[in-house]
């Protein structure tokens, strides 16, 4: 069964069209990554899929039903949850309040309590800081909190927007391990990353986004050896960043 099916997606940001006729499929239980350089349109794709930017599409369906015309918060309630790039935490509220707000769409208090226990088990660090204000957390903790909040929404699919951004290498590794665990537990994952090595290590399939169009796709082990990746990505990815040509 396909979880997310995108066909012919066009996204506008302001007056300019930033994504052109993108096709993308994520099947249930998969971990798919979307890689691309800065400005390739990765975040625009997420915001388009969530309905935060004006879009047109032939097909945009989630779990078999169309998302077109559905409000962003209702997409979240259907289980399409994004862990945003800048985390978008509720800075003036405590860690626990942040997590509880993650479950607000479900509206079920006992389920929220159970979810909370699960999150604290996954991230013991968050349990220690449950009464601390989110705005005072470190970068890694903020990442954890954003992921935890996303999990509280009981997602059918989690979309990670650049989870490695701005984090120390060790923290990145731990976050990536967490994402792998989340996927193993049965949550479908779309990992949007600039860091090709990390993403390819995790995902089974990959899409490469270049200047608003899909430049290549395939299983990660095949794609890693392809001409496309050698040309644009892997060479410079070794130094940590990605430079598109």
């Amino acid at each position, binding site marked *: 069964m396909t979880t997310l099916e995108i066909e012919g997606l066009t996204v506008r*940001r*302001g007056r300019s069209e930033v994504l052109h006729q993108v096709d993308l499929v994520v099947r249930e239980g998969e971990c798919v990554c979307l890689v691309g350089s800065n400005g390739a349109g990765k*975040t625009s794709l997420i*915001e388009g899929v*969530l309905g*935060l*930017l*004006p879009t047109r599409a032939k097909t945009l369906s989630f779990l078999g039903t169309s998302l077109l015309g559905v*409000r*962003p*918060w*209702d997409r*979240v*309630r259907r289980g399409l*949850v*994004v862990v*945003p790039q800048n985390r*978008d*935490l*509720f*800075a*003036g*509220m405590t860690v626990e*309040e942040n997590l*509880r*707000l*993650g479950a*607000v*769409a479900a509206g079920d208090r006992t389920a929220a309590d159970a979810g909370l226990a699960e999150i604290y088990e996954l991230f013991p660090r968050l349990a220690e800081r449950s009464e601390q204000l989110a705005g005072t957390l470190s970068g890694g903790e903020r990442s954890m909190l954003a992921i935890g*909040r*996303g999990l*509280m*929404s009981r997602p059918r699919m989690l979309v990670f927007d650049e989870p490695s951004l701005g984090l120390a290498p060790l923290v990145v590794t731990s976050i990536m391990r967490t994402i792998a665990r989340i996927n193993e537990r049965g949550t479908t994952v779309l990992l949007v990353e600039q860091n090709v090595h990390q993403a390819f290590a995790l995902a089974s399939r990959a899409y490469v986004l270049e200047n608003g169009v899909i430049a290549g796709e395939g299983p990660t082990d095949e794609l890693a050896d392809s001409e496309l990746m050698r040309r644009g990505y892997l060479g410079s990815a070794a130094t940590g960043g990605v430079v598109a040509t």
Partner: protein
Amino acid sequence: MSTVLQLASTGLLQGLIYSLIGIGLYLVFTVMRVVNFAHGYFVLIGMYGVLSLEPKGFFPFLGAVVAAALGGALVGYLVQRLLLESGLAKGGHSQLVITLSLGIAIQYLFQVLHPEPFETIPNPYPFEAFTSSGVTISAPRMAAGVLSLVLVLAVSFLVYRTRIGTIIRGCSESLNGAIHVGINVRRVYRLTFALGCGLAAVAGGLLLPIQPVSPALGLELTIKAFIVVVIGGAGSLWGTVAAGVLLGLAEALGSLYAPGTFATALVYALFFLVILIRPQGLVVRATSRIKPPKSLTKVGVG
């Protein structure tokens, strides 16, 4: 000395009403980043609402206040839904001009409907006045102050202790975050605006037996509400409450030293200075809050 005590007591009670008016504006201001220049005119809606119901006796009066509050909330809901919602995404200053114009429209509508200035109602409460150690407080003033305090506490309970309150605060903290957890932001905005306007209307109803109503009062109350919110700061609701009490006290005690119009002029001039000299604390914070988050500016959120 007893004069000072008398003035301080009336000032305190009047200040509690300002607090109630202020928290309505505070909610709208911090949650939705909307600057509602019509806020004081919703107080006017409450005053004229109760006036036109002509309540005789205590319980009819309470009923009239509740009805006026619901009326104010309904008008607020419609204003947000029909007039402001679409403009939130456009940015610019359309809501500023829309709410300013709306206030003027409400004022002159009442001018046509009630050309007689300074209308009021007789004391609706079953008691007359309280006297203690040389201080006399009339029943309506005492009741208005106490009821305002009760409502302020109720609102703070709602905001800080309930699920709805958490959602409202979430929207105020991060609009994007709220969307990412599946909060129907548009509905929260509508309800918050309705709540803010409803609170203003309640305050109007409570104010009516103390303060005769004229259409021009709306502007004065709008400015006072802004004074309270600006001085109180965007940080917490309690700042607004404290600023309301402070304004009431300053107004009452100020009347000792300066005659009417000049005292108001002084208040406005001081307010102008506050706007200038508090940019780091309040104004900047408010600025960053007034603008919707970058990625959402092009979308019709609300």
